[in-house]
């Protein structure tokens, strides 16, 4: 296998942009129509992901040891899409046909062999990892919605009960899908692990979000949804040692922060926790009953609500971090931030300017959602391997 030749041919193909994955999927669906129903109706996001993943694989093809972890995760994870061994050759055929189409007369027998060999390796690592993962956990968990509360126009709080225990730690995210939508979103459970295994999910219906709209508007108690293995550990409490905490949350970014508060309560460590919860307007504090209850139950917890938009001063927006930094000096603490990408990046910048070092500020990745185009391809930057995603709210 000639890595340089492989990379060079890929760069030629990649110049065609979105045409490439479009051609690939159309070829796959025409040759194997039964695979169409494994994908969502809207394939736009899917195409980005394919190209990003392929690009990542090709650019690291001569450093197989760096790829293996990525591919193993990918293979184990693809089980939740009901991918089976026989799908791998079908994908390989479509890939080769696509490359051949775009390379036209530059497609040679040697190149075909290179690509076939490279894909064979990828398919082998992925399917072996998928098989190995079978021994560890199921491809997905079926869970029943046991409570569904609309808390705002576009926010619902769901309690779901998986049929089998789904182990996770506070701050992690789990995959969520509705059987009818064929796509997955990641949500952080808003609770520390419970004895009865139930999970609380805070879902905001995103414009155009098939899963979130379905969960908020189109599902009710008794419905079955699918959950996938937890990912991410950047918001884990372990990173903070035993130090006191400053928690900054906005919108449904409150969910993992709530889990952290519960976790602190469960570990009984008596650390001090100051929580700043932000929302655009007063009516958007969708979980204030629970927040007030936590605040009154735990003397070590202090809560401040921060209303972002003030009717009297339109155009100005106060973030939770602005209020927190105005209130005091928290530099001896570990800071956890969760909210929209915009909120998180604002908070991270403000904290850095105020002299907080990166090691004490914890947040999920920016700009790359779980299953966004950059999902898991940023392995190089992270210590733990799979935490490139985040910002799911």
């Amino acid at each position, binding site marked *: 296998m000639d890595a340089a030749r492989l990379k060079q041919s890929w760069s030629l193909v990649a110049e065609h942009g979105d045409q490439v994955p*479009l051609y690939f999927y*159309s*070829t796959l669906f025409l040759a194997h129509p039964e695979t169409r129903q494994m994908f969502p109706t809207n394939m736009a996001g899917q195409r980005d992901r394919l190209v990003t993943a392929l690009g990542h694989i090709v650019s690291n093809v001569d450093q197989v040891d760096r790829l293996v972890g990525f591919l193993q995760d990918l293979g184990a994870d693809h089980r939740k899409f009901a991918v089976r061994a026989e799908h*791998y*050759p079908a994908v390989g055929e479509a890939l*080769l046909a696509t490359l051949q189409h775009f390379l036209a007369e530059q497609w040679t027998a040697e190149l075909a062999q290179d690509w076939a060999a490279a894909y*064979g390796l990828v398919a082998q690592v992925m399917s072996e990892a998928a098989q190995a993962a079978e021994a560890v956990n199921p491809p997905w968990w079926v869970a029943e919605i046991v409570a569904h509360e*609309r808390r705002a*126009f576009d926010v619902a709080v769901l309690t779901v009960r998986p049929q089998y225990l789904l182990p996770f730690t506070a701050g992690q995210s789990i995959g969520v899908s509705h059987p009818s939508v064929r796509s997955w979103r990641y949500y952080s459970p808003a609770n520390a692990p419970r004895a009865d295994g139930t999970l609380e999910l805070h879902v905001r219906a995103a414009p155009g979000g098939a899963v979130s709209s379905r969960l908020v508007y189109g599902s009710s108690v008794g419905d079955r949804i699918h959950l996938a293995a937890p990912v991410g550990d950047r918001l884990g409490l372990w990173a903070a040692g035993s130090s006191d905490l400053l928690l900054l949350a906005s919108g449904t970014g409150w969910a993992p922060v709530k889990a952290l508060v519960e976790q602190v309560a469960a570990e009984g460590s008596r650390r001090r926790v100051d929580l700043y919860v932000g929302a655009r*307007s007063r009516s958007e504090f969708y979980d204030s009953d629970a927040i007030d209850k936590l605040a009154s139950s735990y003397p070590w917890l202090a809560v401040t609500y921060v209303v972002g938009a003030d009717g009297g001063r339109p155009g100005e927006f106060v973030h939770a971090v602005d209020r927190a930094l105005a209130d005091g000096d928290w530099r001896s603490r570990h800071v956890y931030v969760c909210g929209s990408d915009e909120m998180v990046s604002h908070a991270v910048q403000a904290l850095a300017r105020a002299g907080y070092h990166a090691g004490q500020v914890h947040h999920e990745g920016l700009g790359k959602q779980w299953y966004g185009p950059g999902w898991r391809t940023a392995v190089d930057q992270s210590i733990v391997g799979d935490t490139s995603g985040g910002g799911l709210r």
Partner: protein
Amino acid sequence: MSATPISRYDGVQVSGGVQVRMTADRVRRWEFGTAPFARRGYDNADVDRFRVQVADELDLLATQIASLRAENERLNDRVELHRHGVIPSAGTAAAKAPAAKEVNLLSAAQREAEQIIAQAHDYARRVAEYARMQYESYMRAAAEEAKQEAERAVADYRSSAGPSFDDTVATREALRIFGEMMVSHMQAAARHLDDGSEQLARTMDRIAKETPGAPFAAGPAAAQAALPRHHQR
């Protein structure tokens, strides 16, 4: 060509309880019994027995070869699959691969579907944003009006009460008026929303009837569920 895959086959001649394999060599060396009564030729019974056995043997071998060939093909494919991830030699792959024209046609259809979906989402987003702004300005205006009304009531009270003016009474009165005004505004808004929701329910019903496979199979109950909880009766 090695014969190792055929470790055992069932074509056996049982003679004296000992299993003897029928081989080409044995066929060549087979000695037929001599015919009685000095007739020329072999013993017919002997020959028949031999022929039947050879025929059976060949049948068996033929089926075994066929199944081994299939098995071999399968294993070869697996090896190729492991080595390349695809079956390049299948030849069928090239024949089966859809033509670029077909592929592009499907791609165009997919693109168009996505555009329609995106337009629908964009429209929904604009409607929601518009509604949010309407709501906020309505609330602001209602609060402002209620506040003015309350202030007027306090001023009236102040001028009529003269020296007996009581701050607590004034505050209570102001709050009462403010509250009543807000309640009446909210009731008006709720009536307005009720009209809207009924219209929405009718629209959803109509859509559900027109599109049998619609994911949000509506009906009044579903339409009701799609409304905020303060609005469900």
